């Protein structure tokens, strides 16, 4: 079952509909409810390799539904520590729980000051409102 629309206020957001949960020097990344809902039920996640580097504002993976494909944009720069295998195996997890079980990758941040440039929930919701 798809989750109901929500945007947790403990997350930071990127205008390309991605989120980051900051945990010390690490961050967990995912896509927002809006992104998952726009695509429809996900059928494939093409993840980056563990150990590779993701770069802020650049694509680091792809998510696909039956009829659409979308780059996943990195909100922060860092090294990939872990890929969420559950999403690789069952991509619909993202639709069901975009901010919990449906996270995509965990990274070690290269530059913690990048966090300051991300949107808070209010700013992200105004991005959504303008679309």
């Amino acid at each position, binding site marked *: 079952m798809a989750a109901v629309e929500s945007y947790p206020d403990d997350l930071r957001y990127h205008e390309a509909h991605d989120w980051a949960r900051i945990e010390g020097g690490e961050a967990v990344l995912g896509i927002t409810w809006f992104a998952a809902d726009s695509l429809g*039920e996900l*059928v*494939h996640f093409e993840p980056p390799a563990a150990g590779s580097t993701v770069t802020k504002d650049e694509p680091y993976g792809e998510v*696909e*539904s*039956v*009829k659409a494909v979308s780059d996943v944009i990195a909100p922060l720069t860092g090294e990939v520590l872990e890929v969420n295998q559950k999403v690789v195996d069952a*991509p619909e997890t993202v639709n069901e729980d975009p901010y919990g079980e449906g996270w995509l990758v965990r990274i070690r941040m290269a530059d913690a000051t990048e966090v300051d440039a991300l949107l808070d929930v209010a700013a992200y919701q105004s991005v959504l409102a303008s679309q």
Partner: protein
Amino acid sequence: MKLIYERSQAGRRASVIPRPAGLPAPEIPDDLRRAEPPRLPEVPEFELVRHFTELSTRNFGVDTGFYPLGSCTMKYNPRINERLVTLPGFAHLHPHQEEDGAQGALELEWRLQEILKEVTGLDAVSLQPAAGSQGELTGLMLIRAYFADRREGEQRRKVVIPDTAHGTNPASVTMAGYELTDVKTDARGNIDVDDLRAKVDEHTAALMLTNPSTLGLFDENIEEIERIFHGAGALMYYDGANLNAVCGISRPGDMGFDVVHINLHKTFSQPHGGGGPGGGPIAVRKILEPFLPAPAVVRKKDGAFALDHDRPKSIGKVRGFTGPFGVFVRSYAYMRMYGPRLREMSEAAVLNANYVLARLKGAYDLPFDRLCMHEFVLSARNLKRDHGATATDVAKRLMDYGFHPPTIYFPLIVPEALMIEPTETETKETLDAFCDAMLAIAREAADDVEILKSAPHHRPVRRLDEVRAAKNPVVKHAFETAPVA
């Protein structure tokens, strides 16, 4: 129904292969010899015929009924053409036959080239590309070769494409090694000329444009667009997918285009065969002729027809031989049965489309409220907003009324798009029946949307689960499973 593999029983067969008596076969070295036979079906001939006949009854073609699939030009395919391709001189001619043994085939190809030159208003034709998208790629290769020859190859890296374009256009751009520049559509459905002007410069190699566009609209600013591109030293590519709208009325060459591909399987009635074959000849302006694929089909001074391989500036070959010859036979025959009356064909296609549009535009949203050409795009967004019925639901419900659905969700700039192309084939009675069905479905959406959501109800299968197919792709038969009834 069963797969042919599920009808198979070891030991049955449909073929008898003559065995030359007393002739030994050479030994195949062990490591090159087939170890285990392929599990091809084992059926007698009548089982084969019944299986494929049953399969055919689970399919819908133009011969079955109305097929208004936008951008695909699903017109009647004359039966005489199927007889003509079986003439032994065509069907059993080896493509490496010497030229003096293939004069009829070469003449047919040459005559087809001449007709296409006149229909497109251009100077030279290559029949080689196998389909529209290969025509696109070939055209871009010509453009690349042309600029390389002018020493502008490094400088001109960009190809401009409107956001209404077929996906083949951007895909071809990448395959040709070019970079893509997107240009927007304006409120009337034309290319946004201001956006265009800002994006075309000395780095631009070409424009790729479908005109009329995938919205079914003729670009009213085509002359201005031509000035912008040629003014910047760039070339213009015409995607001929929609040529059915303008035969004998306006020619790509007259619009200023330098390269055109023609979809023989759309405009000129090669049957589409459930996904091919097609034919994608290209016609070009004189400046591009030296770069055309080799060999070229030419008529010599003595009147004989020949293959000219001596084309030093040619981009090379894009497929085997001179192209899909059987497609040429059919399309040539089709064009000879129309001659100058091709204009009547296009006029009927445009009249049919406008009539259907006029009857449907109250019930469905019309994003660009203009007269259309040979097709038009409606939006089911009003049904989605008011009743929760999507373009998919409308399409599936149309099946229950006995019609093939329109193209849906394309072009991408129209939400819940329904792209309808009636073609010139069809009586007014058929068009009316289709319009009545579309209007009934709009009413059903309001009265009982579930009947749309659960459609189709009268096809060999109900709505199919595409998510399941994509998640765990099963793309061939798993032989170990038990037969399914």
